[in-house]
């Protein structure tokens, strides 16, 4: 029996997710707006002194990026679960491992990737030293990909629940901590003129591990959620 190639199927799935996101631009805009508003709150809370802002900037930017990703995770599988598309995906002869990787990739492209690309603007708002901006972009791009993978595990586990939002945070936030620690430490190092390479390498290692293992967990979680 002739069937379409797995790569072709995954690209089609990725394109479908992106088309769905573009047709509902609010979903793309929300995390960016959230990022902008929260970053704008920091000078109000910490005081507008530039040195003080620069001191808190790496950690603050990372926490906001993390929360912005977390906010959007809940919806990754939600609508497909509600309208039955997920059942059909599970019955399709294609490997679920790669399909969920396509879901995660699409989620990262419309949240983490955009946040990473927009982060220099927010870094300037918090007076982050210019030398650290390159590291910030690289760290956010790498780190949010890990966050997307982890977040999708939570999304897949809670997709069968009517209100999974809070539960996702409880399940996933502890797993987010290593990314936060190494991500902000890398930016901190770059801001104080130290090499940030090792931190980025550790984020890259986490991403490789995530790509290898997270889809297995997501696929298993989806099967359980559909079964219930």
């Amino acid at each position: 029996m002739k069937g379409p190639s797995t790569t072709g199927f995954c690209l089609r799935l990725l394109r479908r997710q992106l088309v769905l996101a573009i047709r509902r631009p609010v979903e793309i805009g929300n995390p960016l707006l959230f990022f902008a508003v929260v970053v704008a709150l920091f000078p109000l809370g910490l005081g507008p002194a530039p040195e003080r802002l620069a001191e808190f900037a790496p950690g603050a930017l990372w926490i906001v990026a993390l929360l912005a990703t977390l906010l959007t995770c809940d919806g990754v599988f939600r609508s497909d679960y509600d309208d039955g598309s997920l059942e059909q995906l599970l019955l399709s002869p294609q490997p679920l491992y790669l399909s969920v990787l396509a879901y995660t990739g699409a989620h990262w492209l419309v949240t983490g990737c955009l946040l990473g690309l927009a982060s220099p603007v927010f870094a300037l708002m918090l007076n982050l030293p210019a030398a650290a901006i390159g590291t910030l972009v690289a760290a956010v791009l790498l780190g949010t990909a890990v966050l997307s993978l982890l977040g999708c595990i939570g999304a897949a586990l809670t997709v069968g629940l009517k209100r999974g939002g809070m539960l996702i945070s409880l399940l996933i936030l502890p797993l987010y901590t290593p990314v936060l620690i190494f991500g902000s430490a890398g930016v901190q190092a770059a801001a104080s003129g130290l090499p940030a390479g090792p931190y980025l390498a550790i984020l890259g290692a986490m991403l490789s591990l995530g790509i290898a293992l997270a889809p297995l967990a997501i696929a298993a979680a989806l099967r359980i959620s559909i079964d219930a």
Partner: protein
Amino acid sequence: MSAGTPLLVASLLSLERGGRQLFSELSFEACPGELWQIVGDNGSGKTSLLRILAGLCRYGFDGRVARTSLPLYLGHLSAVKGLLTPRENLAWHIAGESEYSAARIESALASVGLYGYEDVPSHTLSAGQHRRVNLARLYLSDAPLWLLDEPFTAIDRQGVAALETLIETHVAEGGSVLLSSHQPLAVACPVRQLALPSGAIQ
């Protein structure tokens, strides 16, 4: 009874939900050329049985299901995305099993009476039209075994007749169809009935 190896063998299926035994020790074989109708009251476990047969439910029941190939399962949910057009929806539905072919999709949509609706957003369509987009998959699929959960819901009279003809053709070509429905089927081929919860076969 029928020639050929069974497409689906269910042996000793039992299911309990919420402390109620929905059915117990259900055994049957669906062979090529057979049309099965699953009948039973609301809540008697028709949908649960079809989900078990499709392989969507893998735990929580007793017994075994053996399939020779992946079935085509159409459930209560239409799997139609409001933001996508019928053409895009259908292209995605069949993406896993066959190559994209614009002509095939167009002819399938025309067959279910959606000619002219290919490129409008699906959220402007009615519930019956959503169901029709879903049923267009029957024209595109190569799967020999169809599992249809209440396929006649929300469909108008011509639609029901067309679907019955399609099922007849599929069965005549050596496919097998299991469907749940409350209405009697107007088809020329013999219909085997599986009654829930007793499991009696006619």
